[in-house]
């Protein structure tokens, strides 16, 4: 599903150049659950952003479903993204002005799903995330774990093939964190490919494979059994 080769990302500011990704190569197969680990500043988020078509690389190749997407313009990336990729962030990133239901509904609106169908699918996924009773609440009225469940619900409502999660449990206590990990595992078992950045060895153990990064390169891969 994902095949990247010699990927480069360099941040330039007035004084310094930071090489965030240094000729990184990586492959993720369909249905895999991959965890990315490494010290702070090693380029994990950068990698995830490129995988999620939120950012473009400065060099190298990026095949998404056998299509070269490294050179895609913003419009094409946005189009590909909204149909194929769901995101879960450490800080939830829910829209404060929208209710739980409306937040989850949003991706469906942007992909042009009809209103009746939207309602059905949102309710379905809220039900699955056990947050149905909170559908008319605003994000501020929810606990962190509940907010992250909403975020996961929003990420999966469009039935994406790939879910990218950047430290999804980073702001949660262990029991809420485990709950979210269980959700991701369930999704993976139903066929969704997952790439997750984490600092927690415990969370990483939910995955099939751990990629360890250092200074913008992969240094080690552990295959979980």
């Amino acid at each position, binding site marked *: 599903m994902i095949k990247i080769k010699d990927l480069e990302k360099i941040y330039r500011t007035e004084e310094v150049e930071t090489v965030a990704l240094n000729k990184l190569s990586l492959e993720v197969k369909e249905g895999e659950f991959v965890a990315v680990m490494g010290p702070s500043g090693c380029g994990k*988020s950068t990698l995830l952003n490129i995988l*999620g078509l939120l950012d473009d690389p400065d060099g190298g190749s990026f095949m998404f479903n056998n299509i070269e997407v490294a050179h895609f313009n913003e419009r094409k990336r946005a189009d590909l993204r909204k149909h194929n990729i769901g995101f879960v962030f450490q800080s939830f990133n829910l829209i404060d*002005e929208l209710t739980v239901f409306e937040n989850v509904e949003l991706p469906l609106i942007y992909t042009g799903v009809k209103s009746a169908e939207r309602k059905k699918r949102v309710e379905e996924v809220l039900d699955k995330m056990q947050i149905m009773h909170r559908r008319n609440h605003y994000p501020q009225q929810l606990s962190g774990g509940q907010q992250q469940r909403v975020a996961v619900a929003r990420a999966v409502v469009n039935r994406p093939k790939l879910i990218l999660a950047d430290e999804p449990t980073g702001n949660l206590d262990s029991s809420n964190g485990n709950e979210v990990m269980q959700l991701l595992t369930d999704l993976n078992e139903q066929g969704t490919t997952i790439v997750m950045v984490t600092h927690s060895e415990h969370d990483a153990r939910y995955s099939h494979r751990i990629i360890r990064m250092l200074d913008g390169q992969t240094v080690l891969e552990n295959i979980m059994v």
Partner: protein
Amino acid sequence: MFRNYLKTAIRNLWRNKTATGINLLGLTTGLTCCLLIGLYMQHELSYDDFQSKGKRIARVIMEYTFGADVTRGNFTSTKVAPTFSRTFSEVESAIRMTQTTKVVQYGDKSFVEKKFMYADSTFFDIFSFKLLEGDPRQALMYPKNVVLTKSVAKKYFNNQSPVGKTLKVGTDGVDYLVTGVMEDCPSNSQMRFDMLASFSTLGVNQEVTYTNANYTTYLLLKDKNSFDGLQTKIDNYFKEENAKSNDPFKVTFILERFDKIHLHSPYEGFEPNNSITYIYIIAAVALLIMAIACFTYINLSTARSVERAKEVGIRKVIGAMKGQIFGQFVGESILLTLTSLVLSIGFVMLLLPWFNDLTNKQLSIASLATPFVIAFTLIIVVCIGLLAGSYPALVLSAFQPIRVLKGSFKNTGTGLLLRKSLIVFQFVISVFLIVGTFIIQSQLHYIQSKKLGYDREHVVVMPLDMKIMKVLPVLKSEFTAGSDVLSVARATNLPTHIYGGYSMNRPGLPEGTEIMVTANPVDEEFVKTVGLEIIAGSDFTRQDMEDVMHEEQEKKIYHYILNESAAKEMGWTPEEAIGKKMFLGDMRPGYVRAVVRDFHFTSLHNPIKPLVLFTEDWGRYILAKISGKDIPGTLARMESAWKKLVPHRPFEFSFLDEEYNNMYSAELRIGKVLNIFAAIAILLACLGLFGLSSYSAQQRMKEIGIRKVLGASVAHIITILSKDFIKLALIATLIAFPFAWWMGNKWLQDFTYRVNVSWWIFLVAGSLAVIIALVTVSIQAVKAALANPVKSLRSE
């Protein structure tokens, strides 16, 4: 999708109550001003539109040349209309008109009709006034026929039909037969008479001369494109005519387009004209105010973009396209402007009576309720929404989602330069309007305080007609019986505006030379009553008046008082002039009694020209100088004398200083309007500044907190927060000055007598702008500086 946008828009607007409030207030005020001004302009621009033949009608302006002196005027003699109809094939028909004041009586009802019009029988053919009763061809056919407007008919006859009845018109009660009733003249008509009588009634239907010019002439052309052709023919015709006679007095005529009179003509019509310049000024002011409101919106929205950044980032990650985000924010601003529109329509309805008073109009919001205007307004509102919303939308929709969501997003100068420029621009507009207002006000003050060479305080003005003339001596003695009436005079023109055109001559000048001069028939109390300063000779005497009261013209001896300019024109020093023989017009032999100091006898737009006051036993006004100690008491006493001696006419009076101010009604009005709108502009600019400074203080809460923890004083923090804004206000002031100076001078150029634009106006305007900015900004700065730092740090 749309519902979702609407929902977020409403919630967003609701959540940011301060910003929304400021924007709503700004946009509503802007739109209210625009709507009011729009109503006003619509009315002004629609003048005479209802005249279906308006494009084919010409007003005839007379141009008379005397030596090097060329004068133009809107009055023509009775000869023009018949001569032109006959001579020029382009003319389909012509009409002569004149408007006067008449006392009209029916049964026991009697009123003074100030708008009593006389017109030729072609009236209803040329003009599109609707006749409700009567025959348009016949109504003005015979002498002493009169057509009434609907509301006047009601005044005299209630609901009875007046046609066939007779009214008693004038002081001698001549019977006029009512031959028709017409619709009231529309408010946007350059003639708005109440009664319309046949021109033949006047008995002046002669073709002797072009120089007895007291009437207005209009021509109806066969073809609306024949103005230029006809003008050439007229020029040639009068070139020949003038060549034939050896009269030094030359005359020709100029055609003026009827539909351009109200806004473009320097010559008055039956109703006061307006000037297209003032229409432009007021339209510009409306646009500037709207611009200020839009800029405030843009400023606040871009400044707040950091807050909105997270939302945009998330929407983009989830799949929103740039265009969708753009649409969302533009939608928000259009929603806001539409809300403002609804509010401002409410305000317009509330303010309309006041605005009508200000502009002296009867506008109604109903005139806006046409499909075209509604569609137009909606389009404009959407445009404003687009204009105000699209820049913030552009900025916001271009956010890179990852940068935003990573939290590394800072408002790194996004739109900072633009924001600063817009603040500067708002203040440029404000300072410009402040200076403009000051210049206009100081000229108006100058006009009002100007020593005119006569005393217009405490002079009561009353009308005079033939009947009153007979009792004038008794009336005078009744008036002056009390010590509160100092003197009573009679005059044909008021000293505020003397316009009678004559020519003068003296023995010793070559045969045929005649010097153009303005002259005013007066009596022996005139100089005293209006307080003219005699610099040589002495005032008219009772005997001087007796000298002109002979039945036979040949026995009359006239007496003259010249102003300095007239004496100079005659080639005399003031002292030399006394006792000299001179003539006014062809006859009127007489002697110079005195020379008075030059005084302003027309508007300050014009220079002082030669003037002659001469003895004559008629006039149109009674002037009474009163002590001013107990004005109501004095007036009551005068009224009772009047009622006793002048039963045919109610006691109507005005004050000379009012008459004077009336000459500047356009300027006074524009002055008032500008005052108000300048104040609104400044308020709106401050509102924007207030919003922005409160926002910037809020954004810098953490910084302020840290600074305070480290020991910064309140004063220091206020300085930090206000410095930038004050700098901007200063820059704006400097930019605005040259523009304001240039425009002010251009406006003043219309006045021959005017103030100089002095440096203090700029100093005051500049300081005012900066002080206002300072106060506005420091309210926020002080609040921020006094806040408890622990709070702001913890909330981070």
